[in-house]
């Protein structure tokens, strides 16, 4: 089944539910609500099996790959959905690829049914020390930590990169909430104070480099997908607006200077989509695949942020109000640029990898 699934059909089902459940008005209203997560939306997603997308079948998942996850993240970006899906995608990848059998059995079903919500540490963050039986330290700026049931934090053990999975309510764990300009997501710094380190909480892979590459690859694709969804959605709604808003006795969409900017944005997004489709099919273990994934992250998050920025300008005055949607997209697009790897960090990696090729 997984191999033969039609991703375009998947797209349609994502768009259908989100289009019905997370309309523009909800998105705009949510941005001022102060909530940490759209609980009801998350429940619906879980109910439809979206949280199970990339979990292996034997653990209650659909066993699909990053290409399917890419579609889902694009759909969530397209409505700026306030759900912590990135943590699920990343945690499922990590645990499925590097977890022991008991770890997989312990966590993958909970990820699949949505009951486990993960705050996944910034890959570029400081590493914790997992050598002892307890762990101390701070994992700063963990995405979606404030609404998470679990954290996946990275550190070192036996000289290797490794990860721990920790319940948010474990003794000694506290979370400092950082509200974001992008109110569709949250950030939290997780402080660990004498937190007991159960042996089974540590994920240690024989080939930690491969796991690190895999996570980088999946993270880049998920964020690039989210941004692609943002870029396409904000451009589409702006084009709609340009077709109805009148100034000087004409719809403003008839002004050539605006048309040319829109055409450039559309061209950039058509290309971005093609790049992403391609990257999502590459093997993360593949050197060229990682180059393209990092490139896609740097390129597509930039394109989307620039499109969203200009869409505010194209809206004119109403674009400056909280009541219209472009700002919701701009804030999310700008955050995507900074998450996991900044553009400059990604490009430095690309240059390194190209030179090593």
């Amino acid at each position, binding site marked *: 089944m997984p191999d033969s699934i039609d991703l375009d059909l998947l797209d349609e089902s994502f768009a259908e539910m989100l289009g019905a459940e997370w309309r523009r008005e909800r998105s705009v209203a949510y941005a*001022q609500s102060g909530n940490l997560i759209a609980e009801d939306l998350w429940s619906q997603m879980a109910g439809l099996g979206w949280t199970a997308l990339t979990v292996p079948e034997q653990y209650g998942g659909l066993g699909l790959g990053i290409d399917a996850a890419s579609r889902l993240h694009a759909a969530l970006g397209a409505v700026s959905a306030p759900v912590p899906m990135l943590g699920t995608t990343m945690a499922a990848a990590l645990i499925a690829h590097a977890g022991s059998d008991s770890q997989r059995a312990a966590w993958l079903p909970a990820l699949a049914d949505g009951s486990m919500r993960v705050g996944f540490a*910034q890959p570029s963050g400081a590493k914790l020390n997992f050598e002892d039986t307890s762990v101390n330290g701070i994992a700063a*700026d963990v995405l979606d930590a404030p609404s998470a049931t679990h954290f996946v934090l990275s550190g070192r053990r036996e000289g290797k990169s490794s990860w721990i999975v920790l319940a948010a309510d474990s003794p000694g764990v506290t979370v400092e909430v*950082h*509200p*974001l*300009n*992008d*109110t569709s997501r949250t*950030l939290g710094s997780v402080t660990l104070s004498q937190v007991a380190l159960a042996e089974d909480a540590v994920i240690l892979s024989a080939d930690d480099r491969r796991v690190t590459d895999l996570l980088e690859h999946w993270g880049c694709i998920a964020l690039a997908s989210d941004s692609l969804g943002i870029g396409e959605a904000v451009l589409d709604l702006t084009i709609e607006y340009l077709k109805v808003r*009148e*100034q*000087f*006795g004409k719809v403003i969409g008839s*002004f050539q*200077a*605006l048309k040319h900017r829109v055409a450039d944005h559309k061209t950039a997004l058509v290309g971005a989509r093609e790049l992403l489709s391609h990257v999502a099919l590459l093997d993360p273990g593949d050197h060229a695949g990682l180059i393209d994934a990092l490139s896609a992250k740097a390129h597509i998050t930039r394109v989307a942020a620039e499109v969203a*920025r200009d869409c*505010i*300008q194209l809206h*004119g*005055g109403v*674009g*400056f*109000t*909280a*009541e219209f949607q472009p*700002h919701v997209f*701009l*804030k999310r697009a*700008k*955050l995507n*640029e*900074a*998450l996991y790897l*900044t*553009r*400059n960090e990604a490009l430095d990696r690309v240059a390194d990898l190209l030179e090593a090729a």
Partner: protein
Amino acid sequence: MTRTFDILSKVGDEQAFRQEIRDWLAAAMPRNWRVEWQGLENETLKPKMIAWLEERRKVGLATPHWPKEWGGPGLPFGYQIIVYEELTRADAPELHMYMVSLFHTPATLFEHGSAAQKERYLSGITQGTDIWCQGFSEPGAGSDLAALRTSARREGDHYVVNGQKIWSSGAINAQYCLLLARTEQNVKSKHEGISYFIMDMQAPGVEVRPIRSITGEQEFCEIFMDDVKIPVENLIGEEGNGWNIAQSTLSAERGLLIFGGTERLARSFERDRVDGKDSWMRDPQLRREYAAFHAELQVIRLLIRKLLKELEASPDKASSNLSTFIKLSWGPFLQRYTEFLVRAEGLEAHKWKAPIPATAHTSRIKFSDFLKSFAWTIAGGSNEIMRNIIAERYLGLPR
């Protein structure tokens, strides 16, 4: 603290003038205001703003750039510059609630107001705490300002006004409004038949609704007018000549208003470098990006000084060409520079912090400053309108 300050008497001795301002600021400026005022809006902010205006008034600097004819201190150009330099240097709060009062109202009244209007309303600013707002734009007439539909119907000794305005900064706090309304419906050109009024915001039928902006602040408002009566003596200039008068109002916006903002930004630009010295200033690329902004900032500061010199020579008539070039330089520059800071600061810039009022575009909350930059690229004539004006009016390219 019991010392009194006599700044204006020091004109003629730049050094003493400057020192007196510094001493006064050290004594009179609200303490720690960036922290105290953070997150304040309208009602809570207003008394603080008034108190600060009072301090400035005491030393004759409520309206430092006003000539004597307007009731201002009539400072020579060089001394005006010093005042702004010192206010900036001390990081004094901007009188942002008084923007229209300080800039648009005098630019309008001085050239077009009656003697009685000048007498009454300018003194309300120099001697009182009158807050003004501007009622130009409408939901259906943004960039196409002349398409406005708010109507003013003459009935005896007053006009009856009906309609809706939008993007009125600070209308929620205002006593008066500079209002454009249509007094004649059947006109050949939409620029005809528009008249210019002073509207009392406390008059029956005026309703104000704040608009929340993308920074989360409520600076802009909508104004709804339902059979509002405006006495005929509140008509500015001739009936039907409002469009031309509005050009005076707008020209104030495109030049002078930017001055304070750029000087503050120049100061903030230096602090950004110091703040970033152990982080992004060590990245060779970001460092160059930063350095490249220096030229752009200098360009804008120089263009503004040139405009101010022109204004000094002929205070009632700003060069509209220059002010258009300034507007189209400043807005996009500000947007690119604040975006750069967001990028340079990384994830930290994405953490929400309550906006700090009265800081112009230098709250130093990077994301908030970036979002606010759209006010300059959209409001008061968008980038697109500026480009049309330059191409068609100045360069003679055909419509």
